[in-house]
């Protein structure tokens, strides 16, 4: 017995090393799910505050470009609003409730962002106090940014589109073909469009937008432009590269979208599955 204890004492350094590494690996694995606890990441209170202060200082350097893009977005929205304005001279028809979209929009500021790792996350300065919930879609005036992963009281963390495991349901505008956008971990400017069958004719320069099928994003938010189409090596699908519409290197303000009908749609999908069984 004593010799066992002596032996354990002699290799104590190695045992503590294994113990600490086990904790680290446990943390890595438990963090790998797409939605999880947010205690140990940049949206907890202390780190959130530090990042917020840092961002308040850095923000001044990008004010002009932020203003410019906000003005552009404003102008676009104003011209769109003009179409919906009720005119006096024409008859007005009440829109049917089946056309109600049920999307709620919110705005937030990016306080932490990374683009160079293979699993990138973004931290926003709004949390559950402001009505942010897990699973909300995030985009800005250029295009899709990501999806909310976890929320604390004042901050929230977003899985960036530049995360090798995030899939965004998307479609090609010109021929309405559906696919999934996924980043391949190489260049923060480009991503892949997956699951487009070989028989589809895809042209370079076609726009790719969100499809509205996964109930996170409304239909038609830009994702990018197709720049390269190749036949896939072994699969039945095309190998399509798209240039992302969003410039992730200078994210500053983003919009959040919540589908109020998500629960209803999920419920419907579940009942469909139970019929299949």
């Amino acid at each position: 017995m004593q010799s066992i204890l002596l032996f354990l004492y002699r290799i104590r350094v190695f045992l503590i090393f294994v113990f600490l590494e086990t904790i680290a690996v446990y943390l890595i694995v438990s963090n790998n799910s797409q939605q999880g606890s947010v205690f140990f990441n940049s949206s907890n209170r202390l780190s959130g505050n530090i990042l917020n202060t840092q961002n308040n200082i850095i923000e001044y350097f990008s004010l002009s470009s932020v203003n410019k893009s906000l003005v552009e977005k404003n102008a676009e929205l104003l011209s769109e609003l003009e179409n919906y304005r009720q005119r006096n001279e024409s008859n007005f028809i009440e829109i049917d409730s089946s056309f109600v979209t049920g999307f709620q929009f919110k705005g937030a500021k990016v306080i932490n962002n990374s683009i160079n790792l293979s699993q990138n996350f973004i931290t926003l300065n709004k949390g559950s106090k402001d009505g942010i919930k897990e699973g909300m879609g995030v985009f800005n005036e250029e295009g899709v940014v990501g999806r909310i992963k976890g929320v604390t009281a004042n901050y929230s963390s977003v899985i960036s589109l530049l995360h090798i495991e995030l899939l965004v349901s998307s479609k090609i505008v010109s021929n309405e073909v559906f696919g999934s956008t996924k980043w391949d971990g190489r260049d923060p400017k480009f991503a892949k469009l997956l699951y487009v069958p070989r028989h589809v004719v895809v042209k370079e320069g076609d726009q790719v937008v969100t499809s509205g099928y996964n109930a996170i994003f409304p239909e038609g938010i830009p994702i990018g432009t197709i720049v390269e189409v190749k036949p896939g090596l072994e699969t039945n699908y095309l190998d399509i590269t798209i240039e992302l519409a969003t410039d992730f290197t200078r994210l500053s303000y983003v919009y959040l979208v919540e589908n109020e009908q998500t629960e209803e749609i999920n419920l419907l999908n579940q009942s469909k599955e139970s019929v299949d069984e």
Partner: protein
Amino acid sequence: MSSNRIFLLVGGFVFYLVVQVVLLKNMVLFGTSFCFLYVFFILLLPIEMKTIPIMLIAFAMGIGIDIFYDTIGIHTASLVALAFLRNTWLNTLTPTGGYDENLTPSLLNLGLGWYVSYSLPLILIHHGLFFFIESLGTNLFLPVVQKIIGSAIFAFLMSIIVQLLFYRRRRGI
């Protein structure tokens, strides 16, 4: 250990952590070269320090860095591995006559040749582990090797600059 030493240790810990997450986090050259300067806090701890305290410090440092990088566990795992190997590597590199007491294994104290053979392999192990774990699930090889080598060179050059500016001969930070 005198109170002065403890103060320097805690101060250095906070200083490296804050500099890393506030300044160096956004400094990535060409999209491949990261600057993980915090590694040198572990590398430049006094020579006679035991492996267990070094590993515990490395663990705390790794968690702190991970929280801000949103890479929970990855920095921790690679930094603890570096801390585990550090003293063995120091023993292997003992110059004839042994080390002086209370020495910081730095460029100024032991010379450039010794410092390169001490720090470069350890940085490469740390960076290799970090980028390997980080890129699990992708099938990228070349970009990862680029990142490992680019970041190791960048961090090594930064460490030389920092030591020339802020470290004194014979004494710690």
